[in-house]
């Protein structure tokens, strides 16, 4: 296969406007992307960190993680209520929607949602995730979780 030297191209000035428009469109697209990303940033906090920053977070969407308090799960028709604990702090999670598999006492759970504006200490969740953990320990006979899964 023979290869030839590339032919130098000349850029005609009438193309300049076109390139400017394309460049501006690209910049606009990137800015839009960054704005969308900023809007969809979801912070993760453990229960104790979240409680500490509850005031400044207001009702912004975030994820909080902790262990499900043993025997705290109460089923409702459209979801479930339970207590989530970590670092000595406990909050009530008011979850609407379905639960993931293996949602149970002492499970390490991440809830996505926001603080309830009407009641303190309640977090309205729309999505529950189980943090997969190979060191899961079931509650003891006295109904206590043996460990803090996010420690």
């Amino acid at each position, binding site marked *: *296969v*023979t*290869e*030839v*030297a*590339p*032919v*130098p*191209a000349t850029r005609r000035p009438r193309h300049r406007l076109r390139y400017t428009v394309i460049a501006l469109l690209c910049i606009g*697209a*990137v800015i839009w*992307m*960054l704005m*969308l*990303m900023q*809007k*969809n*940033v*979801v*912070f*993760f*906090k453990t229960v104790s960190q979240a409680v500490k920053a509850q005031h400044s977070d207001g009702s912004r*969407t975030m*994820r909080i993680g902790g262990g499900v308090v043993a025997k705290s799960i109460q*089923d409702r028709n459209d979801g479930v209520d339970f207590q989530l604990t970590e670092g000595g702090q406990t909050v009530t999670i008011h979850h609407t929607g*379905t*639960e*993931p*598999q*293996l*949602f*149970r006492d002492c499970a390490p759970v991440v809830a996505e949602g926001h603080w309830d504006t009407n009641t303190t200490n309640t977090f309205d969740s729309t999505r529950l995730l189980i943090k*997969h*953990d*190979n*060191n*899961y*320990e*079931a509650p003891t006979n006295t109904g206590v979780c043996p460990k803090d899964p996010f420690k």
Partner: protein
Amino acid sequence: VRAQLGYGLLAIGTAASALGLATLVAGIVKNNARLLQLGRRYVVLILVAAIGSFLVMESALFAHDFSLQYVANNVARATPGLYTFTAAWAALEGSILLWALALSIYVGFTAWHFRKRAADPLVAWATIVQYAVLLFFFALMLFAANPFKQVTGAVPLDGRGPNPLLQNHPLVAIHPPTLYAGLVGFTIPFSFAIAALVTARFGEGWLADVRRTTLISWGFLTAGIVLGAWWSYAVLGWGGYWGWDPVENASFLPWLTATAFIHSVMVQERRGMLRVWNLSLVISTFCLTILGTFLTRSGVINSVHAFSQSAIGPWLLIFLGICSFTGVGLIAWRGDKLRSPGRIDSPLSREAAFLMNNLLFTGFALVVLTGTVFPLLVEAVQNKQITIGEPYFERLGVPIGIALLFLMAVGPALPWRAASGELLRNRLLIPAWCGAITLVVALLLGARGVANVLAFALAAFTLASIGRSMVIGVRSRKRAHRDENLAVASVRTVRGNTRLYGGLLVHVGVVVIAVALATTAGWTTRAEVRLLPGQSASVRGHKVTYVERKLTQSPQKTSIEARVHIDGVGNFAPAISTYPAFADGIGTPSIKTNPLHDWYVTLVSAPTAGQATIGVQVGTLVMWLWLGGLIMVLGTALALVPARRRRVLEREPRGALEADEAPAPLAEATT
């Protein structure tokens, strides 16, 4: 013994890569053809080392040789044969071994393919790059992720077994090797791109040389991604198949840039344009595979702090740095010589459509890359854990996907250089009407959501457009060969241009997937029922009965099954299984598939006090996601079949450049 044997083979592989590399460099410096021939032969040694060490690993797994750390961690005596075999890639060290094996096979085939051109500097440089990549992965195992490490202390009596998720579905045997075969293969086009830059031969020759390997890798990667989605659906029990998870994004990113390359390469072959662009795409594809390996293999994803625990993270980062720096540096160095001789004449031309396609694909890649890497950067710099929510990916990905569907309908109908209005009307009017009618029908049938309705309409538009080109092709063949019947003429038309019809078949697969994406997103219902044994509830008009609980125990696992009967659908047995060495159990969904609906039943929690929580999901056209993937793979395979030499001269005029350069027709150059 296996530890020494395996490690010895890895050492041989490392040494052979290094020596082969040094020999080739010496051959190029001294311009000595014999050295170049010799350097090529090192690939045999590398293949022996890679295949040998993989076999040693398999024999250790099957012999339950728990003196090896990897075997003790990933296999138990009770592990069934299939999962003992797949345990070879169930953890970090073994997956690097599989990676090295796949790469050696690719390099071996490439060396064999170019056996008569070993003295060609382009091939020699490409081989140097391939040896360098091999050297890196062998050295990685030798120094940072040794799969043959021995246990410290007493040899355990039994191993732990693979991660539960990796021993409860046979897809584990297919998905990872397929994905690797895809990712690893991009090393070959990368090596030729670097070689073209070094030797200043960035005409179209190197593209023809790597066309097949690129397509093969792309086909494997496509299959690997679809199989991954299927695995996620069938194993993880969340009812979905894609979650914009960093691990998924890691394989999707190189797919996006590789797909862009497969399209833009045609512009370069045809018109000699987009040279820098194509080189950049090939180099970024390879770098993204390394980035993906870094993301998924170094433990960086759970937390950046796991970084220090995994020894391979820094290695991969440094390697990624070297690769991208070399690529960017070479392109900058050769920049002035890379100026393309052609230009796009009209926005209504095939090349303009390809350019648009490339902007969309790379834009998509940029979106996914930013969304994947940004949280890691924030955590590394600010020590805050964040995620980028799915709406970010969906809000940006859906419009890009819709635009790509549109291009798929219009692009293949556009001629090179410039289209006249009349020609467009001629080619697109009927397909466009098909799209419009589908749009109305979809609305009448109750389809809602702009993206969904547009997806259906554009799918019909695309299918009609593809059907039209097929009909035209067959018709013109029949006109030239009156003696052929329709079937013979169709087969011969396809055989005469496998690349075109293979590509169109891939497009059909994409359309099928697009429709299935829309229906699964828009027509999935989920319900959760809490039932005592014998109790029933109604889901979507079907009576769901929790029949009984059943406990099955085997040495491999203990499963609690819930027998569930759904009237008019069948019996289900979702389960939760616990494996001896793992405290955390895993759920296994029970799925019934038919062409229209998927019934997907999960056990939310182990039924202890009699009551069980059962999840029931009904998805629409889910099966077509996997079938669409299969069609894409078949199309890729078709495009790889060498085309019969066409007797009829091509109708479209060839560019002045191509007349000068006179590249051999691709089908010939690559067979």
